[in-house]
Structure formats: structure tokens, C-alpha cells
């Protein structure tokens, strides 16, 4: 199924999730690598071009993902999760979106702070909108770096939490995001996979 139900993530939401994960990790690694390239390195210009372009595509993906999220039922949280866990999970999801969009804004400003556009895969160019602020590119650069590490740190905790739910709590949190389980209200395995082996 493409769409979400009240108990399961649909294919589109799952695809959005994993594309985001791959793009974020990829952009982080590419970003760390490219800032230390020497001026005469073959990739000195190409790597930032790719980083910017992928970043814009990821942002478009995030916006579509948000639209999709609001156009779909939200699969209910597992009732085995304590209220504070549910609240925390929800807050972390919101924080992820805020971080992702802030990463786009700060990255965009590094490139466009002095009026240059931001080319995307040689297809089109995002125009500069905010210019004329002293040292905007420096401020945006620092924010971009801090947020990048924050996002990756939060992503790591998010992944560890998923593994904890899978291997320690033995619930279906991770399986749901792999499209392999749903929290069927009538099932005794609603919130817990139980020990089927």
C-alpha cells in the first residue's frame, strides 16, 4: 500500500524516511570531506556543487514529505511506549524537520549571501534573496556546521533508539519503518512482537 493507515506506514512514507536518512548521512560525509579538499584537487569545485544540489533536492523531498505527512493518517504510537516516550518521539520528529529545514536555509545563505545564485545540477539556479548583511556567509557557515553535528548526533540517537526498541523491547517500531509490521488493534502483538521463536 502506498498510503499510511492508522496502524502502518505506507510505502511512500517509508521511502521518504530512508531517502532522507541516506541523503543526510551522505551530505554530512560529503560536507566534511569537501571542506578539507585542497585547491588543486580534482573535486574541489565538483564536491560543493554536488553538496549544494543534493541539499536542494533533499529539501524538496522534505517539503513533499511534510505534505504527505499531513495528507495521510498518522500511524498510532505503540501503546507499549510510555507517555513520555511518545511525547519525546513526537518532539524529536518535529526537531528533525526543523533541523533539516534550518540546514537548507543556512547552507543556502552561505552561497547566496553576496548575491550569487545557487546552481542546482546545472539545471536551474536558486536566486539570492537575503544579501547586504555583513558577514552573513560566516554566520550562516557556523550555524550550518553546528546544526550538521546536531542533526547527525540526533540521527545517531534516533537509530540507536530504533535498535533498542527492536532488540531490547522487542517491539515493532523498527519493523514498521521497514514495512514489515503493523500495529493491528486486534492483535495481541499490537505493541509487542512477543517471543515467536
Amino acid at each position, binding site marked *: 500500500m502506498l498510503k499510511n493507515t492508522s496502524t502502518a506506514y505506507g510505502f511512500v512514507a517509508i521511502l521518504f524516511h530512508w531517502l532522507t536518512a541516506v541523503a543526510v548521512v551522505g551530505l554530512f560525509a560529503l560536507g566534511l570531506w569537501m571542506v578539507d579538499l585542497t*585547491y588543486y584537487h580534482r573535486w574541489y569545485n565538483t564536491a560543493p556543487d554536488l553538496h549544494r544540489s543534493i541539499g536542494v533536492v533533499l529539501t524538496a523531498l522534505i517539503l513533499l514529505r511534510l505534505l504527505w505527512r499531513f495528507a495521510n493518517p498518522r500511524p498510532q504510537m505503540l501503546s507499549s511506549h510510555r507517555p513520555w516516550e511518545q511525547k519525546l518521539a513526537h518532539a524529536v520528529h518535529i526537531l528533525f524537520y526543523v533541523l533539516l529545514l534550518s540546514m537548507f536555509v543556512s547552507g543556502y545563505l552561505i552561497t547566496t549571501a553576496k548575491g*550569487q545564485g545557487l546552481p542546482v545540477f546545472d539545471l536551474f539556479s536558486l536566486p539570492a534573496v537575503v544579501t547586504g548583511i555583513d558577514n552573513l556567509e*560566516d554566520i550562516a557557515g557556523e550555524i550550518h556546521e553546528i546544526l550538521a553535528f546536531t542533526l547527525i548526533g540526533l540521527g545517531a540517537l534516533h537509530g540507536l533508539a530504533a535498535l533498542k526498541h527492536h532488540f531490547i523491547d522487542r517491539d515493532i517500531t523498527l519493523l514498521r519503518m521497514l514495512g514489515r509490521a503493523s500495529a493491528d488493534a486486534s492483535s495481541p502483538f499490537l505493541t509487542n512482537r512477543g517471543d515467536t521463536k
Partner: protein
Amino acid sequence: MKRLLGSVVTVVALSGSLLASSAAWAEKYIIDTEGMHAFVQFRVKHLGFSWLYGRFNDFSGEFNFDPQKPESNRISLEIDTTSLDSNHAERDKHLRSSDFLNAEKFPKATFESTAYKPTGDKTAQVVGNLTLHGVTRPVTIDVEHIGGGKDPWGGHRQGFEGRAVIKPNEFGIKMVEQLGPAAGEVELFLTVEGIRK
């Protein structure tokens, strides 16, 4: 009248010989950064293929100028290195970073002249100490007196253009290693118009 008297008293107190000729005391000029009739620019070769021009937008300074007593001519200049502007946000950010100017750690560059040596009717060599990237070294600026006198608004102005060639590597900035041998020398253009105090 009171101000004039004060000046006369000061001059008498300082030196009787100066009183003999009113033109003989060194006149102090403030560099007109308010009306921005002054420019601190540089150029450096890109790959050895072309000249890249940039400037520092924020600086201040003053000079003494007396055509009768050139040995008393002097200039001091303070430049805000975070205001580097090469009309490209990403490049400006990089040039200000610790790879080059390290503007966060060394936000000021200064020049203090130590000698003024006329070389012709309108030309001179200004010798002084340039502090850049936390390193102070002697630098010689070839100066041309462009013109001066009464301005249309009741003031007095004098204008100069100076050119100096520096090797950033001597100031601890690894230009050659990072940008290639053609970038080893940077030309500085100091264009100043001063308004007499």
C-alpha cells in the same frame, strides 16, 4: 576666535620655529571613510591565469601631510580583516577563515609608517610596519600624491594612491602551499583622501 587663539598658544608652546611659518606645522588629515573616498584593495593571481580583485570595506586612518616638511609626513591605517570582500560569499568566507586571514583571531591589520622618502615631484616611498595575521613586518609603499587643496564645501583635502607588494607567506599565511606559486605575491592598493582636521 577662541579656537584660533588656542591653536596659536599650542603652537607657541610646542615650538617657536613653527610659528614662523603657519604652513610649517604638520597638518593632520582624517581619511574620508565616511564619504568613502578611500579604498583598500588587493589583487592576486588566480592559477597564474588572471587577476582576482578584492577589497576591505571597513578601515580607518589618518595621516600628516606637509609638502614643506615631507620628513614629517606619516600615515596610520587600521583595517578590519573580517570586512574582506571579493564579491563572492563562499570565497570571502574561505579567505577570512583560518586557512588564510584567520579574521576571527586576527580581526585587525594595521600599517604604521616610519619614514617618508620623496622620490619625485609627486611620488614618494612610505616605509612602515604592516601587521597582518598577527605578524609585523616592514613594507614599502610606493605613493603618488594625486592632488589636494580646498574642496567645494569649505574643507581641505589631500589624496594619495599607494601600491605595495607583499608576500602573505612572510606573514604566516600559507598562500603558496594552498593556492600555488602564482598566488605568492599580493598587490595592495591604498587609495586615501584625507580631510584636514
